[in-house]
C-alpha cells in the first residue's frame, strides 16, 4: 500500500499542493482527475524526488521512504525513447542499467513485445514507427523497471482517439497481468472511468481531493454504461462547482 500524508509545496508564496494526503491500496488502480494546471504533475515531481517537498511523508508497504525514485516506474506523456536505439534496446534500458544479463532481458522483452503487438519491430528505430507503437514501447520499458509501483502521468494524452482506446486496455495489463499498484493522473474523464478502481477528483490550486469515488463496474467497461455515465455527470458537476475544467 502507498500512503502519502500531508504533502505541501509552495511556489512564490502560493500553495500549489496543500496538506495533500492519499492512499493507494496494493494492486489498486487509482486515478487522479483534475483541471489542467491543478498541480497533478507537481505532485508526481514531489513523489519522484524531482522537487523537494516542504512537508509530508511517504510510506510504501509500511516503510517510510524519502521519495519513490527507486521504488516506482514512471511513464509520462512523452515516450522519451532514445532515437538512436531500436525499440527493444529502448525497452531494455532499465534492465541494462540495473545490470540484468542481456539474454534474460531480451527474452523477456520478446514476450512483452508479442503481448503488446510489437512483435517483429524489435530492431526498428522509434522514428520508423507510429506514435502508438512508440508509446507501447514506452509501456514495455515501464514494465522492464520490474517495480511493483507505477506512476502514470497522462501517458496517452498525446495520442489520437483510436490509438488511445487500444492502449487504455494495455494499461490495465499493468494491474491484471503484472500485479502492479498504479497511480495515474489524467484530465480525460472517460479514460479515468474505463481504467480506475478508485477515482479521486481534484480541485484547482491549491490541489486537494474534493471527491473520492470507488468504481465497481467490472472490466471490460464501456463508456456508454449507465453507471459510468452517472459517475461522469457527478465528476463534471463536482469540477464545475470547484471552478475547473478537466
Amino acid at each position, binding site marked *: 500500500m502507498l500512503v502519502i500524508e500531508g504533502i505541501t509545496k509552495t511556489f512564490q508564496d502560493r500553495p500549489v499542493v496543500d496538506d495533500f494526503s492519499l492512499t493507494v491500496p496494493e494492486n489498486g488502480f487509482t486515478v487522479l482527475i483534475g483541471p489542467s494546471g491543478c498541480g497533478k504533475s507537481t505532485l508526481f515531481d514531489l513523489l519522484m524526488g*524531482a522537487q523537494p517537498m516542504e512537508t509530508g511523508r511517504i510510506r510504501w508497504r509500511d516503510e517510510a521512504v524519502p521519495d519513490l525514485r527507486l521504488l516506482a516506474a514512471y511513464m509520462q506523456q512523452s515516450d*522519451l525513447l532514445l*532515437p538512436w536505439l531500436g525499440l527493444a534496446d529502448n525497452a531494455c534500458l*532499465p534492465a541494462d*542499467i*540495473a545490470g540484468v544479463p542481456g539474454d534474460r532481458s531480451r527474452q523477456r522483452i520478446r514476450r512483452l513485445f508479442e503481448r503488446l503487438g510489437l512483435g517483429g519491430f524489435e530492431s526498428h528505430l*522509434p522514428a520508423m514507427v507510429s506514435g502508438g507503437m512508440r508509446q507501447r514501447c514506452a509501456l514495455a520499458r515501464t514494465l522492464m523497471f520490474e517495480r511493483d509501483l507505477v506512476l502514470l502521468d497522462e501517458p496517452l494524452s498525446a495520442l489520437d482517439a483510436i490509438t488511445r482506446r487500444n492502449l487504455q486496455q494495455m494499461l490495465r495489463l499493468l494491474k491484471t497481468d503484472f500485479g502492479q499498484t498504479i497511480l495515474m493522473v489524467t484530465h480525460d474523464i472517460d479514460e479515468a472511468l474505463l481504467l480506475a478502481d478508485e477515482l479521486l477528483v481534484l480541485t484547482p490550486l491549491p490541489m486537494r481531493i474534493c471527491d473520492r469515488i470507488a468504481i465497481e463496474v467490472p472490466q471490460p467497461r464501456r463508456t456508454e454504461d449507465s453507471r459510468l455515465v452517472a459517475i461522469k455527470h457527478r465528476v463534471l458537476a463536482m469540477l464545475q462547482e470547484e471552478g475547473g475544467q478537466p
Partner: protein
Amino acid sequence: MNRSLMLPVGILLALAGLWEAGSRLSGLPDFILPPPSRILQVAVGNAPQLLPHAGITLVEILAGILLALAVAVPLAVVMFARPSLEKALAPFLVASQAIPVFALAPLLVIWLGYGLASKILMAAVIIFFPITVSLLEGFKSCDPSYRVLFNLMGAGFRQTLRRLYWPWALPYFFAGLRVGVSVATIGAVIGEWIGAQQGLGYLMIQSNARLKTDWVFAAILWLSMMGLALWHAVGWLERHCLAWKNFSDKPFRGGTNR
C-alpha cells in the same frame, strides 16, 4: 557527375579560367603570378618531391587531431560533470584562443624542438577548442526529461554519459570536429614556417625564398586537397555514426502504424 559536385567544380573551373587568362594577358612573370596550368603541372609533375612533404604535414595534422581529441573529450566531460570547474576553466579556454598561434609557434619550437612535436602541438592547440566547446554544448543540450528518466532508472553519471549524453552530443561533436580539421592545417603549417626541415610549410618557405612561386602554389594546392579529404573523412564518419538521424529527420509517414 554527381549534381551536388557540378556547381563547385563549375565555379572552380570558371575561376581557374579567369586566372589563367588574366595571368597570360597581363604578361606578369611566373614568379609573381603563375597561371593555374603551371601550378597544376608542378603539383602533379613533381609529386614525387611534394608527396613526402605532404605526408609529413598530414602526419602532424592527424597526430594533432588525436592529441586534441585526447584533451578535448575528457575536458568537456569534466566541465559538464562539474559546472564549477567549467566556470573556473572557461576564461583560460577563451584566453588560449585569444593568443595568436603565430605568437605561440616560436615558443613551442624552442620548447619542443624542430621535430614533429611542436607542429603536432600547434595543430592540437587550434583544434581542441571547437571540439571542447561543441561537445560541451551538446551535453548541455540534452533534454532534461531524459535526464529525469535515467535518474529514475538509477543510472549513475558514467552510465548516463555512455548511454545518453554521449550519443546525444555526437552531432555537436562532429560539427566541432569538422571545424577543427578544416583549421588544423593552419597550426601545422605555421609550425613548419617557424622551424622545420620538412613538410609543406617548410617547402613553401624554401620556395618563396627562391621565388619559385609556382611551387608555393603547388604546396597550397596539396594542402587544400588534404583539408578537403579530412573534411570528407569526418563527414563519412559522421554519416556512419549518426545513421539513425536519416530516419529521425523524416516525419513518420505510416506503413507500420498499428
